[in-house]
C-alpha cells in the first residue's frame, strides 16, 4: 500500500530500512544502488529540518514576517504552507533561533518583513550567574509556538509531520554570553561556561516537554554552534554532546528527535549518533558516504538527513540543479531529503517544489 508522505517521514525517522535510490535517471543512479523492483516501496519524502519560509511562501499563504514570528495564527499558516504549497512531508515552527535567549533576557532586534529576529545584546557576561527563568515555557514566544503546533496538528497533521524546533544547550549558551567569550572559555576555563550550558539544558528539557505536550510529532534540536567550523572535536565531546544527550534522554523516545548541526562534522558523526538522536541532519560539507560507512562498521543505524545546498542549488540554481543534488544525496545514503540548513527567504518557490518532486521520483528500497 502507498504510504502517505507523513508516514514515509515517520518511517524514515524510525530508521525503518529505507535508503532512497534514483531509478528514473539511468545515467545518474549508481548501479550499486539499483534495486530489483520487488524491494521498491513507496516514494521518498522531502522535508526541511530548518526554517523554510520564503517571501513567495508568505505571499501564497498570506502570512508574513514579522507577525509570523510572534503570533500563533500567522505562524501556523506560514508553516503549513510548507506542506500545502511546497509539498514537504513535515512542517515546523519557529523560524529563528532566538526564542530561548529572549526569555533569558537577550535584547532582540526585530527583522521586519524580510529578516528573522536576531540577538542585539547578550544577557550575560561570563562570570555572571545565569538564572533559570521561572515558568520558562509560559514566557516569551513559547506560548505562541505551542499554539501554532496545535493549529498545525489540526490543519495539516494528517498529511505532514509536525515538528517543534528548539535550540541545543551549547548554542543557547553561546547566545547568552556571546560566541567569542564562550569559545575562548571553552579552551581556557571550561568550568566557567558550564552554568550556562547546564541552565540551557534544563530549559531545553522543559521546552521539549511542552512541545511534546502540544502534540508535535517530532522534535528538532538545532545546535548550530556545536559545529566543527567553530569548535574542536574534543570540545564537542566535552561541552556539547553530553548536554544534547541529556535533552534527548528527557524526551525518552516519546517522539523522534532530529538533531541538526551546521558545517563540518566528519570527525564527530559517530559521537552525534551516540547522543541517542533518532536522525542526524547535516550539511553537504559532511562526507555522507564516509559517515554511512563508519556507521555500518559500528552497527549504527541512525538515519542521516540532507543535503541539498540552500545557496548553490536552492537559491542560485535551477530546478535541474536541485534535482541533481537530491539524486546525489540519495546516492550518498540519506534517508530523507532536506536542505542543508535554513532556506534563504528569497529562494524561488519553484526550486523548493523541485526538491520535493525530485525526491518523489526516487524510490525507497528495503
Amino acid at each position, binding site marked *: 500500500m502507498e504510504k502517505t508522505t507523513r508516514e514515509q517521514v515517520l518511517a524514515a525517522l524510525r530508521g525503518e530500512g529505507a535508503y532512497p535510490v534514483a531509478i528514473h535517471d539511468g545515467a545518474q543512479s549508481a548501479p550499486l544502488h539499483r534495486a530489483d523492483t520487488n524491494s521498491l516501496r513507496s516514494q521518498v519524502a522531502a522535508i526541511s529540518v530548518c526554517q523554510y519560509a520564503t517571501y513567495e511562501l508568505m505571499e501564497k499563504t498570506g502570512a508574513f514576517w514579522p507577525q509570523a514570528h510572534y503570533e500563533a495564527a500567522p505562524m501556523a499558516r506560514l508553516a503549513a504552507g510548507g506542506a500545502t504549497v511546497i509539498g514537504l512531508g513535515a512542517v515546523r515552527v519557529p523560524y529563528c533561533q532566538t526564542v530561548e535567549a529572549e526569555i533569558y533576557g537577550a535584547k532582540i532586534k526585530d527583522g521586519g518583513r524580510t529578516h528573522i529576529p536576531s540577538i542585539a545584546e547578550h544577557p550575560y557576561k561570563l562570570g555572571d550567574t545565569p538564572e533559570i527563568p521561572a515558568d520558562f515555557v509560559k514566557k516569551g514566544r513559547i506560548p505562541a509556538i505551542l499554539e501554532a503546533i496545535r493549529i498545525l496538528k489540526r490543519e495539516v497533521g494528517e498529511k505532514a509531520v509536525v515538528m517543534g524546533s528548539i535550540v541545543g544547550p551549547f548554542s543557547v549558551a553561546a547566545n547568552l554570553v556571546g560566541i567569542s567569550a564562550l569559545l575562548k572559555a571553552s579552551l581556557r576555563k571550561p568550568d566557567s561556561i558550564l552554568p550556562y550550558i547546564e541552565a540551557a539544558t534544563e530549559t531545553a528539557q522543559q521546552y521539549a516537554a511542552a512541545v511534546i505536550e502540544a502534540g508535535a510529532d517530532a522534535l528538532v534540536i538545532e545546535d548550530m554552534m556545536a559545529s566543527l567550523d567553530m569548535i574542536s572535536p574534543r570540545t564537542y565531546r566535552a561541552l556539547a554532546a553530553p548536554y544534547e544527550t541529556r535533552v534527548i534522554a528527557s524526551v525518552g523516545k516519546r517522539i523522534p528527535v532530529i538533531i541538526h548541526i551546521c558545517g563540518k562534522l566528519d570527525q564527530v558523526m559517530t559521537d552525534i549518533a551516540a547522543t541517542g538522536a533518532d536522525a542526524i541532519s547535516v550539511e553537504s560539507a559532511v562526507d555522507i558516504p564516509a559517515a554511512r560507512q563508519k556507521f555500518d562498521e559500528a552497527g549504527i543505524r541512525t538515519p542521516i538527513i540532507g543535503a541539498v545546498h540552500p545557496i548553490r542549488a536552492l537559491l542560485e540554481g535551477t530546478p535541474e540543479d536541485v534535482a541533481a543534488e537530491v539524486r546525489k544525496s540519495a546516492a550518498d545514503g540519506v534517508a530523507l531529503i532536506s536542505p542543508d540548513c*535554513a532556506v534563504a*527567504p528569497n529562494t524561488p518557490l519553484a526550486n523548493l517544489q523541485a526538491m520535493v518532486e525530485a525526491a518523489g521520483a526516487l524510490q525507497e528500497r528495503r
Partner: protein
Amino acid sequence: MSREEELHKGLSDAVVDMDEDLARELAQAVVDEGFDAYDAIEKGLSAGMEEVGRLYEEEEYFIPELLLCSDAMYAGIEILKPHIKKREDTVRHTVVIGVVEGDTHDIGKNLVKIMLESAGFDVIDLGRDIPAADFVRAAEEHQAEIIALATLMTTAMPAMREVLEVLEKEAKRGKFKVVVGGGPISPAFADKIGADVYAVNAAEAARLARELVSQGEAGK
C-alpha cells in the same frame, strides 16, 4: 641568533602558544632594550599569527585557539604601538569590513579582521548587521581599497548581494575590490553576485587581500 631575533622568535611563539602574559613581557623587553617596535610586530607577533593561520587551515587549531592567539597578539601590539616610529615611506592599505544586514554573528568577521590587521592592513570595522549603503559610504570616507563582507547565515545572503548592487547603481564598482566569505558562501555565489574574490577562511582572506592590493600597486 641575536637578542632581537630571540625576542622576535619569543613573541611569535607566545602568540602560537596563546600566552598573553609572555607576549606582554617580551613586547616590554623590546621597548626597554630599544629595539624597533614595528619590526617586533611584523617579525614577531604577525609572524606568529601567520603560523596560527596555518595551524587553523590544517585543522590543528580551531576558532577558540585562534581567538586566544589573537588576544596574545593584541596584548603585545598594545605595548609596542606607541613606540612605532612613523614611516612616511610605507603605503597603508585600508579595508572596510562588516557583517551584512540581517546577521548579528560576527565571529567570522572578527577573525578576518584579526588576520588583516596582523597582515598590516588598516581595518575599519563597521560591526554587524550593517545596511548595504553604510559599507559604500564608509569605504569612500576612509578611502578604502577593499570592502570585506561576511555572513554566517543563509538567510542574510541576499543582503550581501545588495552591497554589490549599491556599488553598481552608484557607478562605484570599479573603485573597490570586494572580498566575501562566511559559512554559507561559495565561490560560485561570489561569482554570481560579482564579488572580486571569495575567501574560504580568515587566513586566506588576509592573503587574498594582500594580493589584491599588490595587483593594484603593480597596475599604477
